[in-house]
């Protein structure tokens, strides 16, 4: 469960460049809820994810994961319960480490890292199983450098890494945006499957209206740091991509269509 109360984030506070990224956001996600987040550039989507992950420190407000207040907790400490996949496939894994070393690193998230070998036999067997389930034929390449994989393969591995150590919350920041259409679809399907399998409370930022409605159980739209739309259940089922685009235009003030509005699709 994630609960965000009156969350305010201001960048460059007290300077001429001051910008309010989140203007008092309230949002509660029940356990296992899968919420997609849309909004134009600068609406505060990534800031919201960053605040939940701990990368962004809020000026005021509270963030709770489960029933623990994590507002002031460092990202590394929160990582025990929060797993993330970034937009950039290069950011989510370590190119210079092997596939299995990356997996071993993720498997120990939130646990005490000791001096025992990171690639113990039973662990490797487990990794092989997990990677085999992907169906990407990577299970026999576990010793290869992560850097040798394609962006899509790395993103799929990042998802597997995110689900290795029993996190409660999954944060996805446009994790399919940098992939080719085929691979994006594969990663989307994988996301759906892994989230269901592990019962993860998920927050996913996306620029695709289609993806926002197809995936998950709830959709919110952010604009200038506020939640402008919050739909779930029947209302969400009836919502079409066109309807959502209309809503998006209205929220933005209708008239102007700049380049980021063209990214709606």
């Amino acid at each position, binding site marked *: 469960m994630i609960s965000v109360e009156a969350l305010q984030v201001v960048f460059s506070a007290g300077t001429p460049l001051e910008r309010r990224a989140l203007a008092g956001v309230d949002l509660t996600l029940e356990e296992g809820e899968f919420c997609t987040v849309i909004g134009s550039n600068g609406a505060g989507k990534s800031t919201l994810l960053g605040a939940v*992950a701990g990368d962004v420190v809020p000026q005021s407000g509270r963030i709770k994961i489960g029933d623990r207040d994590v507002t002031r907790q*460092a*990202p*590394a*400490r929160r*990582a*025990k319960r929060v*797993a*993330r996949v*970034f937009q950039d496939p290069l*950011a*989510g*894994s*370590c*190119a*210079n*480490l*092997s596939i299995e*070393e990356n997996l*071993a*690193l*993720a498997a*120990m*998230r*939130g*646990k005490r*890292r*000791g*001096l*025992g*070998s*990171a*690639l113990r036999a039973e662990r490797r067997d487990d990794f092989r199983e997990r990677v085999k389930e992907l169906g990407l034929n990577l299970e026999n390449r576990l010793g290869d*450098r992560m850097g040798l994989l394609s962006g899509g393969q790395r993103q799929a591995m990042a998802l597997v*890494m995110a689900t290795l150590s029993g996190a409660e919350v999954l944060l996805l920041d446009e994790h399919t945006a940098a992939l080719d259409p085929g691979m994006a679809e594969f990663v989307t399907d994988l996301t759906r499957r892994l989230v269901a399998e592990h019962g993860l409370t998920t927050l996913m930022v996306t620029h695709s209206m289609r993806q926002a409605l197809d995936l998950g159980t709830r959709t919110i739209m952010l604009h200038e740091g506020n939640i402008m739309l919050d739909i779930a259940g029947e209302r969400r089922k009836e919502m079409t991509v066109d309807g959502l685009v209309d809503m998006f235009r209205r929220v933005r003030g209708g008239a102007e269509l700049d380049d980021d509005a063209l990214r709606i699709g």
Partner: protein
Amino acid sequence: MSAIAFWGAVELGLIYGFVALGVYLAFRILDFPDLTVDGSFPLGAAVAAVAITAGWDPWLACLIAAVGGAVCGLVTAFLNVRFGILNLLASILTMIALFSVNLRIMGRPNMAVLNRETVVTPFYDLGLPDHLVRPALLGVLVLVTVVLLARFLASDFGLAMRASGANPRMARANGVRVGGQIYVGMALSNALTGLGGALFAQIAGFADVTSGVGTIVVGLASVIVGETLFRTRALFLALLACVIGSVIYRIAVQLAISTDVLFLRASDLNLVTAVLVALALILPRLRGAKGAVQ
């Protein structure tokens, strides 16, 4: 080059093998350009010289030197992690400070450790010629260090350290406290360098505050020579390559200096080293640029 000169070069190469391992840890694993070693090497030498002269056990002297080195690394890491001082600058500050500290430790600029009980003394009675005893003992010590270090880096903790250097953001997202890893890594790196300094003092028979000048460049040269000769991803071999690189570097220098054709003197050593390292850094880039044009 005579056999004695050759084995002397091997001996020196093995001593600086500890430095090369430390430099590898800082530069390659943590991606931390660390000049602290220019101060922690003479610190190790100074500490060992003072302790041995005071009649302490030479192995204990080595241990204290390593701990002293570790403290130097921690100071640099503290300046960088806690206060955000640029890593290179933080290490230069520690290095400069150590020059004064080392003078204080010895009470004078240099100190002889002749005719004292050192770590090598007991092994002279085993029947091997003296000039082979030293490389043999050092070889065993450095090999044990390589094995331990390789096992450390292959552990869960070591893996977190490697990730911290290679992709700190990803490491953080996976619950690694990157700052903590820098503390441990820098302490370990400079402990190895301090140990190298302690062995140097005992085998060369002196400690000198200026003996640290260029330690970082020699360490880096060893790492690069090792990497060029042994392209490997296996940790144990990569670490071993640093030590072998250090030995080869010393033999090459010995050869260059003992050949009259090159008009080189012993005092040209630093110039030659700098040119070698610069070339080693430039060559792969030139090759890459050529490949890109084609």
